[in-house]
């Protein structure tokens, strides 16, 4: 993708991410779990969850990565 389009997509993402948590303060949230009523709970959880996911996956890769012909020729992946 050319640089201009990439920048456009990224900026719209940033704008959305700036607006979404603010909405939490503007209306009454009805929630089943007490944590749900914390403003920005879902935003923080989504961000932290995904960063953890990728960092743990990198550790996992160290543990499970093997060369492509590990299971023998024609039998690997």
């Amino acid at each position: 993708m050319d640089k201009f389009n990439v920048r456009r997509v990224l900026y719209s993402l940033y704008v959305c991410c700036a607006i979404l948590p603010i909405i939490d303060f503007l209306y009454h949230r009805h929630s089943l779990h007490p944590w749900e009523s914390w403003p920005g709970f879902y935003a923080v959880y989504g961000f932290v969850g995904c960063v953890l996911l990728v960092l743990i996956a990198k550790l996992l890769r160290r543990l499970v990565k093997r060369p492509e012909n590990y299971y023998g020729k024609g039998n690997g992946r």
Partner: protein
Amino acid sequence: MMWLAELPPFVPFYVAALLAGVTRGRIRVLILLAAPLLGGLQLLGIEPGIEVHSRFLGYQLIPFRVDRLSLLFGYLFHIGAFLAIVFSLHVRDTLQHVAGLCYAGSALGAVFAGDLITLFVFWELLALSSVFLIWARRSERALVAGFRYLMMHILSGVLLLTGVLLHLQQGGSLQFTYIGLDGLSGWLIFIAFGIKCAFPLLHNWLTDAYPEATPTATVFLSAMTTKVAVYTLARGFPGTELLIYIGVVMTCFPIFYAVIENDLRRVLGYSMINQIGFMVCGIGIGTQLALNGAVAHAFNEVIFKGLLLMSMGAVLHVTGRINGTDLGGLYKTMPKTATLCIIGAASISAFPLFSGFVSKAMIMTAVLKEGHDWAWLLLLFASAGVFHHAGIKIPYFAFFAHDRGLKATEPPANMLLAMLLAALLCVMIGSYPRLLYDLLPFPVNYQAYDFTHVIAQLQLLFFAALAFVWLNLRGLYPPELSAVNLDSDWTYRRLLPLTVQRLIAIGQPLDATLRRWGTACGKALINTLSRHHAPQGLLARNWPTGSMVLWVALLLGAYLLAYLFEVSDQ
């Protein structure tokens, strides 16, 4: 038309499979399309409550039983089969067409089976017909992966049969209703279902074999096997608490593998286990809302996972590549495929207005309502993770990322049409969830489009996307690598052969010693025997006849004497 209502839905598919085997060209195309279309029309006229009984070897069988649960899966498999057939119309391969129809027919047979013996028969037919869809790739890798796949599914069948026979012996009924985990028979049947449902550690047949099938066959495979298992769990084990924990593990562990996997269809395989995890969790909760959510999610997953696998199948068909390391920049040459793929990605990520949103939300709400807070937190983590690996990674690495300068065009029209139909269904169900809710087994009074819920989901997804961007810009995102990632298949592809080799290595010296000892014993025995019995041996010597006569005379004399003494004594 009365007999038509009692015609089991697998019949049109099996008949079509026979006909497809002996026809070709346009006629076969018509037969292929007619099976799900006519079968589907017939199914629309069927009302819940039908039960067809028959007797076999003194057992009361119910080969065809219709209720709301089986009917929903019946509709689903007709839709899934139709999409997969349209997607594979350009293929000139009798094996794939016949196997595909048999496979869809077997799945229908299994969900409409009213007794456990009929279920077992279709369970095995499902395994047998599906393996040909893998072997149809005709590569060595597909062949061996197919054998591993078949092994697991035959094991599942054997466990199911053992469980059913045990259940019968203990005075249980053959009717397929609630089974539960009481006693050994329940556990055996549970594990048999669990293998097909890709429970953790029993899951590897899926991620091993599905990506080795042909681009079109994987679409078939993704629609049926695991969904039949979800159906059987929903009928046999609803409300089994263990399923909640199994489901949570299923949603969480595959997403780590999906992040580091290179083969994009294998990424979708891992993501499939993750989605099934949500359904299994819902079945474990077992309330009406949760069960509705579980089967609704199964319905949606067949369509959006089918769409994603179709888009990746199209990429594989056009470019001959499927690894993230080889792909990228295809949005320029395949814009339609890219757009349809993104619709599938939005659906699996449960974006509002797309199908995943309206079904996953029911499960999440049910989990919270029943007070399983930890399960809810982990499912939420998995939801964000889905967006990461299936929602962003798949379209990003295939169509954007680094332009590899691959020569590509849009796939054949039938492939595009199948993807378009699936995408339309995703958007329709996402926008008018009533379409699906009215088909669910229990009455639905759930409102998916609630402001709080929409905003919460958008926050979760947008910040997951932000995490992806941040990690990428910081260079923290793990690059795609050509590598094998060890998974539970390591136990039977490496550990088992290694153990056998090791045992042979230990056994060999022992074996040699035993053989030496045995040979020595034998030799000693032969020597002893030959000393006495060989021509020069003591016992084999010739005795002169005269000496024999002398000895006999002596013996008789001694006998006479003894007799005389005995007589004189009296």
